[in-house]
């Protein structure tokens, strides 16, 4: 039997208090595509970061060609022939397509002054060979997301790695780009490279995979030497054991429909999405990366323009050109990236809290500071926000308490529809408990919540209904009673 190209032996790595990779042994052979899958947060990306020198393992060993190696940095990994295309696009927006594709080679061979013409010609040759339909001379900033992914993949192709890692490469790609991408992968394989291919798209397994490994909660939960397993076997391996019911959800009775979306489309992420949200209801929305869930939230909040479709609030048709329009209609948004989009950095807790409800404190003489303090104190206390200090800088609060302040801000503005995008991701358990109870507080008083999450357990525990987005449209809807992890995963991996 041929020697393994790469071998991981009993790798362990503690990433934070709640999550660790444990005892991972895995190998990669020359000229194979080793497919790796697992739920969000099962540790796939973290494991790959160990191979590419971004993380150092706490225990275990790595060998390449039977030689034990220590991969201490990204540079060392590159010297060993390891190329890692990470999940986010990392391109130089102002450079041309050709410069991006050959960037790794510019430094080494061609000196500082680039011969633009020669480079473009070389790139065009490559594109012809791979069947890529892009102009090598245009700046990357003019390309769409899927096209940037292809440029990234081409750059990985020319990097001449022996060990190539793709992390969710096809999330966000259309049918055409995927075809091109699969050609790139086959090209690499023919060249004898070993490829780790992380993806949720189970239908890609038989197309390009040679072997399959399934991860779950930081461990390897299953391994297949061939890829002819049916998708249900794979899904079963992805789920593993179910955790007990620990989500505090108060039963509420939902009322009439308050928000209705009909045939919403927003190219290229969303195609014909229809949904309704009832009063007093928590509606879950999930989907894999690139399924369009954040885009949907942005459309509902007026951040992104829609190409088509109708939004109704109650019986009225509305159009949001700007978040201010959505706010005026009582819609609040708790965005995914709290630090960037929700927190007023280096301001105190009270300023962060009252910012969406200033008109409540408005008097002819300006804002009423006493009422502002009194109400803010009441909010901090009733939501269990610690420290209970109005004038403490927001940066000094824990992530969980910051998130509670963001939610309390929209409660204070008396919004009626709350769009929460990953409200508990990366947040400590105590704050999660209070945030879930805050959701109960909202719906028991007649507000409605659209809860966007990739934590299936959280959705099963908190939601009245769950919608699954796949490939830009609603693939399935489940009621609280008939939803299960398996069904959700199954419908979200269909494209």
């Amino acid at each position, binding site marked *: 039997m041929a020697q393994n190209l790469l071998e991981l032996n009993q790798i362990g790595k503690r990433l934070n208090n709640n999550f660790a990779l444990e005892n991972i042994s895995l190998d990669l052979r020359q000229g194979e595509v080793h497919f790796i899958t697992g739920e969000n947060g099962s540790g796939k990306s973290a494991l790959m970061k160990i191979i590419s020198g971004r993380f150092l393992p706490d225990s275990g060993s790595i060998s390449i060609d039977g030689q034990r190696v220590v991969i201490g940095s990204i540079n060392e990994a590159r010297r060993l022939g390891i190329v890692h295309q990470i999940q986010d696009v990392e391109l130089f927006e102002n450079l041309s397509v050709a410069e991006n594709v050959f960037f790794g080679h510019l430094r080494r061979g061609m000196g500082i002054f680039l011969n633009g013409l020669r480079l473009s010609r070389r790139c065009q040759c490559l594109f012809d060979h791979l069947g890529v339909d892009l102009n090598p001379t245009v700046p990357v900033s003019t390309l769409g997301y899927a096209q940037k992914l292809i440029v990234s993949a081409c750059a990985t192709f020319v990097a001449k790695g022996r060990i190539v890692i793709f992390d969710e490469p096809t999330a966000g790609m259309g049918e055409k780009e995927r075809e091109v991408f699969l050609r790139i992968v086959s090209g690499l394989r023919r060249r004898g490279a070993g490829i780790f291919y992380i993806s949720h798209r189970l239908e890609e397994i038989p197309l390009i995979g040679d072997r399959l490994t399934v991860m779950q909660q930081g461990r390897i939960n299953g391994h297949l030497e061939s890829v002819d397993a049916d998708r249900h076997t794979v899904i079963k391996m992805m789920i593993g054991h179910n*955790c*007990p*019911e*620990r*989500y*505090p959800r*108060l*039963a509420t009775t939902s009322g009439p429909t308050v928000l209705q979306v009909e045939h919403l489309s927003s190219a290229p992420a969303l195609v014909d999405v229809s949904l309704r949200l009832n009063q007093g209801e928590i509606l879950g929305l999930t989907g894999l990366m690139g399924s369009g869930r954040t885009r949907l939230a942005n459309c509902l909040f007026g951040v992104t323009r829609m190409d088509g479709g109708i939004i109704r609030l109650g019986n009225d048709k509305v159009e949001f050109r700007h978040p201010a329009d959505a706010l005026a209609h009582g819609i609040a948004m708790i965005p995914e990236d709290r630090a960037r989009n929700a927190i007023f950095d280096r301001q105190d807790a009270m300023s962060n809290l009252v910012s969406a409800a200033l008109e409540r404190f408005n008097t002819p003489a300006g804002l009423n500071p006493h009422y502002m303090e009194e109400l803010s104190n009441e*909010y901090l*206390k*009733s*939501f*269990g926000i*610690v420290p209970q200090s109005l004038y403490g800088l927001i940066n000094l609060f824990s992530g969980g308490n910051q998130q509670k302040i963001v939610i*309390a801000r929209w*409660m*204070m503005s*008396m919004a*009626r529809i709350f769009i929460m995008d990953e409200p508990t991701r990366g947040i*400590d*358990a*105590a*704050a*999660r*408990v*209070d945030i879930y*109870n*805050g959701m*109960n*507080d*909202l719906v*028991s*008083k*007649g*507000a409605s919540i659209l809860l966007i999450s990739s934590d299936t357990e959280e959705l099963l525990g908190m939601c009245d209904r769950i919608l699954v987005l796949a490939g830009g449209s609603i693939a399935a809807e489940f009621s609280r009673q008939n939803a299960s992890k398996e069904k959700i995963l199954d419908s979200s991996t269909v494209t």
Partner: protein
Amino acid sequence: MFATERMNIIRGYLKEHKRLEVHTISELLNVSEVTVRRDLERLENDGFLQRIHGGAVPMEIETVGIDIGQTQDDRSAELRRQHDEIARIACLMIRDGDVVALLSGAINQALARCLSRRSRITVLTNDIMIAMEIGTQSGNTAVLLGGSIARDEPALYGSLTLSNLRNYFVNRLFIELDGVTDQLQLTVRSQEKADLIREALSCAEETVGLVEALSFGRNAFYRLGPATTVHKFITSPLASDEYKSRLFESGLQVFTSVNTFEGDT
């Protein structure tokens, strides 16, 4: 003077004054402050009082953020508010037509008051105040368990109560926990209360534990069992983060009485 004598005196003093300071007791009994503090510690472990800065208060009236400068009215008002909030959440778990058991205690008394908004509820209780409250609510029915009246609360305990209880089965049982220890053991402050709750557990489909914020990390001495003895906890959002997360991590439902949103109820 023997320790037991001293403790009896401290008990009597605290019952009468509702608050004591270490230096007063030390002068009164002519013993050192260290001795008094040790006695208070033992009484606290017995679940009789709670030590606060510079002294102690009886177990019943402690509250969050307490200190000796705060008047007793403030403290009990604060605590009453906490009870009302916890009761509000408990009330949301009860549907019209349910059969519930509310065992004696201040939070369950508050819950009984909330139930005036519900109808066709049958309430089984050993608490005289709860029975009287439910009795005045036209839509609901109260069943009072028999037994002997406790000295320090308007509640019935004893073998008669236990044997009465065995005749019933309820949808939901609400119990008040006086202490959730560091090892996540549930405790209450008297033997008869523990006996009654243990008996009641087998007469209910689901058990809900009601806990004041300050009862976490405290040992009330009489053990009921591990945290998994109850199905759900309801406490105040002011409860310590440590216990909220430990209970959640051990797979238990923790309800906190968040009441922030001002939308209509």
